[in-house]
C-alpha cells in the first residue's frame, strides 16, 4: 500500500459512526476493504493510465463522518434555471431552494438513513466493491454519511434538479466523500444537472458515488458539467441500474480539473432498456481526465450508444475506456460505441481503449475509435471562405465537441455549454 493509502487507512475512524446497525456494518466492510487494498495503483488494469500523483499530498485530511468542514456558502451561478437547486460545498449539503414539485423528495443522506427510506438499504448494499481498483468506493462507503437522496414518485415528471457542487480551499487539503442516491419509480422522469466548479487554488479531492435505480419505464437525463480548478481532484463513480423500458441518458462535459476520474456504469437489467452515454473532454495545461464508461446488457432488446469526443492540447492527458458487455441471454441487443480524439500538441497524450465483450449471438455491436487531427481539407475550405487559420481550427474543434452538447434536449443549455467549451477550447501548439 502506498503511503497515502496507509495514511488514509489510519485516518479512518475506528467507530462505525451513527445510524442503524446495517449502516455500521456497511461502513465496516468499506473500511476493511480499504485497509486491505488501499487506493488503486497503476498496476490495476483499470488504472493503467492514471496515477494519483496530484492527490498524493502529505497533509491530506480525510473528511470523516461527524466532522463539519467549512462554513458559509459559495454558489457559482447556475448554467440554467432549475426547479430545485441543491447546494453542496466541499461534499456537504449546505442548502436547497426552489419549489419542490409534488412527487419529488430531496433529503440529506443522514436524514434518510435515520428515517429509513424504502429501498435505500438494498441500493447502498448493492454497490459492487470487488477488487483493489475499487479503493475509492471503499473509502466512500467507510465514511458513508454525507450526501443526498432524491426520490421521484411513480408517474411524476420532476423536471430539472440542479446539484451545485462547489469546492473551496481549506487550510489542509481535504478528501471528502459524498453519496448520492436517486430513485425513479415507475414512469417517473427527472433531469439531474450536476455542475462542478471550484475556487482557484482549490486542491481538495472530492470522491462522489452516485447510485441510481431506474424503475420500469422511468427516464433519467443526467447532465454533468465540470469546470473545476486546475489543481482540484474529482473522483466520481456513477452506478445506474435500469429496469425494463427505462431510459438513461448521460451527457458529460469535462472542462476543468487537475485530476478527474469518472467511472460511469449502467446495467440494463430489464428488457427494452435504453442507455445513451455521451461526453466531451477538453484538456490543456497538465490536466488529466480519465473517463471509464461501461454498459452491461443483461436483458434482451436493449439498446446502448456511447458517443465521446476529446481534445487534448498542452501537456494534457486524456484517458478514455469504453466497454460494452452483452451477457448471455441479452439477445437482440444493439450496442454502439464511438470515440474520436483530436491531439493538438506534442506533449499531450490520448489513451483510448474501446472494449466489447459479447456472449450472445443475436447482437449488433460496433465500435470505432480514432485519434488524429482536424480534417485539413475542412480547414482549407473555411480559409478559402475568408476565415483565418486559427479561426477555422477553433470553429472546427468546437464543432467537434458541439456534436455532444447538441444532443441535449434543451437548446438553451446546449448553447450555454457550447459557449463555455469554446471559451476554454485548447489551442494547437
Amino acid at each position, binding site marked *: 500500500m502506498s503511503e497515502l493509502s496507509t495514511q488514509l487507512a489510519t485516518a479512518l475512524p475506528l467507530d462505525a459512526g451513527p445510524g442503524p446497525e446495517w449502516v455500521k456494518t456497511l461502513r465496516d466492510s468499506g473500511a476493511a476493504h480499504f485497509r486491505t487494498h488501499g487506493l488503486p495503483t497503476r498496476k490495476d488494469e483499470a488504472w493503467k493510465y492514471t496515477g494519483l500523483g496530484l492527490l498524493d499530498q502529505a497533509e491530506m485530511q480525510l473528511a470523516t463522518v461527524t466532522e463539519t468542514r467549512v462554513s458559509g456558502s459559495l454558489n457559482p451561478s447556475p448554467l440554467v434555471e432549475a426547479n430545485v437547486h441543491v447546494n453542496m460545498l466541499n461534499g456537504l449539503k449546505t442548502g436547497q431552494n426552489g419549489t419542490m414539485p409534488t412527487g419529488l423528495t430531496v433529503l440529506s443522506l443522514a436524514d434518510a438513513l435515520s428515517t429509513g427510506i424504502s429501498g435505500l438499504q438494498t441500493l447502498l448494499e448493492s454497490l459492487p466493491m470487488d477488487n483493489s481498483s475499487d479503493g475509492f468506493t471503499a473509502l466512500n462507503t467507510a465514511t458513508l454519511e454525507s450526501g443526498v437522496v432524491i426520490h421521484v414518485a411513480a408517474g411524476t415528471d420532476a423536471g430539472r434538479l440542479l446539484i451545485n457542487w462547489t469546492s473551496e480551499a481549506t487550510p489542509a487539503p481535504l478528501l471528502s466523500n459524498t453519496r448520492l442516491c436517486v430513485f425513479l419509480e415507475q414512469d417517473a422522469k427527472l433531469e439531474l444537472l450536476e455542475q462542478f466548479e471550484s475556487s482557484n487554488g482549490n486542491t481538495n479531492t472530492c470522491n462522489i458515488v452516485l447510485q441510481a435505480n431506474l424503475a420500469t419505464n422511468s427516464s433519467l437525463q443526467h447532465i454533468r458539467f465540470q469546470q473545476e480548478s486546475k489543481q482540484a481532484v474529482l473522483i466520481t463513480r456513477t452506478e445506474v441500474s435500469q429496469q425494463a423500458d427505462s431510459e438513461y441518458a448521460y451527457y458529460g462535459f469535462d472542462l476543468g480539473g487537475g485530476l478527474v476520474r469518472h467511472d460511469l456504469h449502467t446495467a440494463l437489467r430489464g428488457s427494452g432498456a435504453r442507455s445513451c452515454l455521451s461526453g466531451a473532454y477538453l484538456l490543456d495545461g497538465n490536466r488529466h481526465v480519465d473517463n471509464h464508461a461501461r454498459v452491461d446488457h443483461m436483458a434482451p432488446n436493449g439498446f446502448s450508444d456511447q458517443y465521446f469526443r476529446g481534445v487534448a492540447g498542452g501537456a494534457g492527458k486524456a484517458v478514455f475506456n469504453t466497454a460494452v458487455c452483452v451477457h448471455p441471454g441479452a439477445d437482440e441487443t444493439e450496442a454502439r460505441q464511438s470515440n474520436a480524439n483530436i491531439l493538438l500538441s506534442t506533449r*499531450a497524450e490520448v*489513451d483510448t*481503449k474501446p*472494449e466489447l465483450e*459479447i456472449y450472445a*449471438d*443475436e447482437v449488433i455491436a460496433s465500435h470505432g475509435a480514432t*485519434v488524429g487531427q482536424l480534417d485539413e481539407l475542412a480547414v482549407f475550405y473555411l480559409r478559402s471562405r475568408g476565415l483565418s487559420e486559427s479561426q477555422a481550427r477553433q470553429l472546427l474543434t468546437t464543432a467537434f465537441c458541439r456534436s455532444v452538447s447538441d444532443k441535449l434536449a434543451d437548446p438553451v443549455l446546449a448553447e450555454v455549454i457550447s459557449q463555455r467549451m469554446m471559451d476554454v477550447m485548447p489551442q494547437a501548439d
Partner: protein
Amino acid sequence: MSGETSTIDSLIEQKYQHGFVTDIESDTLPPGLSEDVIRAISARKKEPEWLLEWRLKAYTHWLGMQQPDWAHLNIDAIDFQAVSYFSAPKSDKDRPQSLDDVDPKLLETYDKLGVPLHERARLAGVAVDAVFDSVSVGTTFKAELKKAGVIFCSFSEAVQDHPELVQKYLGSVVPQRDNFFAALNSAVFTDGSFVFIPKGVRCPMELSTYFRINAAETGQFERTLIIAEEGSHVSYLEGCTAPMRDENQLHAAVVELVAFDDANIKYSTVQNWYPGDENGLGGIYNFVTKRGDCRGARSRISWTQVETGSAITWKYPSCILRGDESVGEFYSVALTNNYQQADTGTKMIHIGRNTRSKIISKGISAGHGQNAYRGLVRMTPRAENARNYTQCDSMLIGKKCGAHTFPYIEVRNPSAKVEHEATTSRIGEDQLFYCLQRGISEEDAVSMIVDGFCKQVFKELPMEFAVEAKALLEVSLEGAVG
C-alpha cells in the same frame, strides 16, 4: 519460485564444477525443469558455452516471473515440473506400424483436407520408409538456396554452422526476460528454424517448415530467427496442420524477425494444433511470442495467421516500427469451436517517422469457444505522421460462445493518426435462408459465409495455404451449426 534466488545464483556460479549429471544418451529427459536439465539439453545439442550461459540466464529470469493472467483465458494451473523438456524423436518401434493403427477420426480429417495418402501416414507419425522422411523442404532445395546465398536450416544446425549470426541476433528482438513464456522458451528451446537472407537477395522460393516440425515431434519449444539484410525479400510459411493427439501439451515458441533497410519479410502461419475434444478435454496450450523488428528504413514485416487449433492460444505477433517509413501488417483469422479459447492480436509500436501499420482481424466463435482480440497501437512522440488502421470483426455462431475486443490505443504525437473499427455480428438468418432456398446445405452455407468473412485475410496467404486454410475452417466448424 522467487524465494531462492541466492541459491540459484550460487548454483550458476558453480556451473563448471558439476559437469553434466544427466545421462545424455537417453531419449527423453525425465519431467521437471532445473539447471541440470538445461545443461543436458545444451550438451546433447553440443552447444557452445555462451549459449548455455544464455539459457541459464533466461532460466534465472523465469524463476522470478509469474505466469501472466491478464488474458481473457481460463487456464488450469500448469505444473511446469510435470513437463518433459526434451524428447528426441521416438524410435520406429513406438510408432503406429500402419495406417490401420491410426485414430480413424484423424484420417477422416486428412481426407477432408485433401492430404495425399503417403503424407497422411507421415503426418500421423507412422514409421514410413526413408524416402519420404528425407523429403524435406530444407534438403531438397538447399542447393538452390545456397546458390542465392540464403541460409535456411534448423536452429541447431545454425548454432553449429553460423554461431556468429545466432549470437548476434538471438534475443535481440524478444529479450530473455520479455515475458514468462519467452523466458521459458529461452531456457529450454529445443530446435526451430533459422533464416538469413543476405543483402539485396530476393529469396528464390517460399520457405516452409510445413513438415519438418511435425516430423521431429519436438515442437513444444521451438525458436525461429529470420534475418533479412538490406533490400532482401523473404516469404516464410509455417504450418502446423497436423492435428496432434497429445493431451494438454505445452507449446511455447518464440519467433524473432529482423528487417534492415528496404527489407521485406512475410510470415504466414496456419496453426492447427490439436484443439481438444468436443468436451474440452486435452488440446495444446499454445503460448507464442512472435515479434518483428523493422530496424531499417522502409522495411516491411507482414504477419498473416490462421489460427484454428489449440485448446488455448495466447499469441500477439507484433512489429516494432523503428525505421522511418517502415510498415507493419497483421492479418488474422482466429476460430474457436467447442471449448477452445483464443486471446490473440498484435502490437504495433510506431517509433520511426512516417511509419504505417494495418491490422485486419477476423474472429469466429462457435460452440463454447471464447475468442478475444487484444491489440496495442502505440504512437511514440517521435512517430511523426505515423498511421494506423485497424479493422476488427467478430462473428458468433451459436449462443454459448463469446467474442471480445480489447484494443489499446496510445497516441503521443499530434501528427499521428489512428483509426480503429470493430463490428460484431452473426450469420444472418436471411443469408442462411437465401442459401438454403437455393438448395445449399446449411453446413455449406455457413462455410461459404465464413469464407467470405475471412476473405481479406485469406488473400494475404500464399495460394496453396489459402486453399488449405479454407478447408481447415470447414473442418473446424463441423458440428457448429444445427
